[in-house]
């Protein structure tokens, strides 16, 4: 079953990464903390997905300081936007094909 869908973007074929990009599609800059609480993830879990998305160049990481606290924020890249839209289209067409 899974084999038929091999043309899906492997990086986005994961609900957490897909959710992260959904948030970044709507909001320009979102902090690590906000994504963590919004998706109810642990630091380590989120960090591994961040790494995957950054490696694919789907997001850019911005590090700064708010007072003395380090603040990490993410922004989606044009490549990331494109990948997200294509992935969405594929999901929709897969589902509509399945219904027929």
């Amino acid at each position, binding site marked *: *079953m899974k084999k038929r*869908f091999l043309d899906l973007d492997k990086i986005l074929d994961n*609900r957490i990464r*897909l*959710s992260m990009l*959904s*948030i970044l*599609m*709507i*909001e*320009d*800059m979102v902090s690590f903390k906000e994504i963590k609480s919004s998706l109810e993830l642990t630091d380590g879990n989120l960090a591994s997905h961040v790494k995957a998305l950054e490696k694919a160049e789907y997001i850019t990481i911005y590090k700064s300081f708010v007072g003395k606290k380090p603040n990490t924020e993410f922004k989606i890249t044009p490549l990331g936007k494109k990948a997200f839209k294509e992935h*969405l289209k594929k*999901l*929709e067409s*897969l*589902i509509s094909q*399945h219904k027929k």
Partner: protein
Amino acid sequence: MTDYIQDLATIRGIMEKRTKFISLSGLSGILAGIYALIGAYLAYRTIYYSDKTVYEAYRNGEWSPEIIQLLVIGFSVLILASLTGLVLSMRKAKKLGQDFWNPSAMRMISSFLVPLTAGGIFVMILIWRGQVAYVAPALLLFYGVAVYTAGNFTFSDVKTLGIMEIILGLLAAIYPGKGLLFWTIGFGGLHILYGAIMYFKYER
């Protein structure tokens, strides 16, 4: 396959949650309240410093200068408050990097305008039929309903404001002679209170 359906549902959920109209400006609520207070003060002067009572003039179907003055005050407050809300919310949307006219904004505005328009027409009918005492309660009541339904598309605090306006409208109906007092609390006091809460909670 259910996995993919679930994926799409997740995306939709996130997008909807994120696209609530969060650009609504608390500061504009405070300003709207201040305009309403100034308006109420001017209305108070118009009513209580005039030679004959405005209610009497109404009952006789006269369009006395006082009545016209009251209508002008009311509409000026409404227009000023709406414009301030629009400008400040647009500014906040820009600051947040959001589109002002997102689908939530549209839904929010239409769910606000429908009950409010009904209320506006109802109030005109009240004036026309000489039931002036019920103008303030009716305005508060319909405004409360409008705010409550619009609250579904923005911060949930807005719904609380709607309920408070509805309660105030009902109270005002019990004491029909005290319209201006309830009007001052509902449009002045509550807006300032709610605007301040929103401002400190979300904008600082």
